[in-house]
């Protein structure tokens, strides 16, 4: 559930197809996202789940974001 919502946010923000995005997907290497893309994705995730992700540096793969959200909901 958390993964699906995060996947949709990423796909919307980066203009990607949802089936391109798995838990192992690396934001920078696989999706070509830069820091501003990641900031916007993290903001949207924070709003969606009502959580706070302090350290963006920790978020390298989609799974990193999923784990950070799951620890707070």
């Amino acid at each position, binding site marked *: 559930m958390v993964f699906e919502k995060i996947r949709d946010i990423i796909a919307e923000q980066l203009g990607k197809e949802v089936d391109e995005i798995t838990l192992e997907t690396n934001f920078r290497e696989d999706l070509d996202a*830069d820091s*501003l893309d990641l*900031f916007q994705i993290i*903001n949207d995730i924070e709003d969606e789940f009502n959580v706070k992700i302090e350290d*963006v540096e920790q978020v390298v793969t989609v799974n990193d974001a999923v784990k950070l959200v799951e620890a707070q909901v």
Partner: protein
Amino acid sequence: MKHIGISGGHYYVPDRIVTNEDITQLTDTSNEWIIARTGIEQRRISTGENTSELCAKTAVRILESTGTDPEEIDIIITATVSPDYLLPSTACLVQSRIGARNAFAFDLGAACSGFVYALAVGEKLMRAGAYNKALILGGETLSKLTNWEDRATCVIFADGAGGVLLEAGERESFLAEDIHSDGDRGMSLTAGHMKVNNPFLPEGGGVEPGYPYISMDGREIFDFTMRNVPGSIKSVVEKAGIGFEDLKYIIPHQANDRISLGIAKKLGVDPSVFYRNISRYGNTSAGTIPIALGEMFTKGLLEAGRGDKIILAGFGGGLTWGSLLIQI
């Protein structure tokens, strides 16, 4: 009821164009990297003109284009974070350079929101007092506050000035405003830290100077902007009882083109409504909005008395932000 109108505007930027290619000679970056992350292709950098000179040259152009005598000016407000001196104020230096000897002049510091703040303050001084004409200027030489070895910031910041003439009369330009500060988050964007240093300190002085240059926490500033600026823009539209379709332009502070586009997306407004010139001038803090206005006046995109509704949206250090809904 006294009405306050914007009757013209102009800008002045230094001649020296610094391209992204030029910056690759100074620090490890590339033209493609800078364009992709900021939208900036070139910027103007002073080869000697200080902030008061950029602002005074702007002021002369405003006076000429509106047919105003400098002695008619009652108030000069200069929004800047990069003054020539702590004292005299940049505005007093401008006063002297242009011969506005009947004016009172002062600087206003609200970083990238400075011009929006200065316009709001100037308008209220005029409405409350016996003043008829005010020059509201915003200008910077950020190149002197930039660490040219820090590639996160030196690709962004630049020099330039702009401004407008406010006049009391039949026409009202100020329709709605929304202005805020959040000092709790102030440390996420800093420059020119001045520490206490004197012989009476317990250790007898000799304190290391504070970091003089612009220092920015990109995530914090991005977060602040995206969470506050779209709402502020929306609030002035609602306060004025109009819709986004009634707006001719939205002029955001030109912080980074990706941020301007992000704000447009969040508002659901077509990006073409956003006036964007950062590709040519970079981020000149208090200068960006008045440079844009000045450019729009000189290109004929804006004309005093035509009645176009626009929004000016400033945001930046302080942290400060604010939106003005204006009829030109």
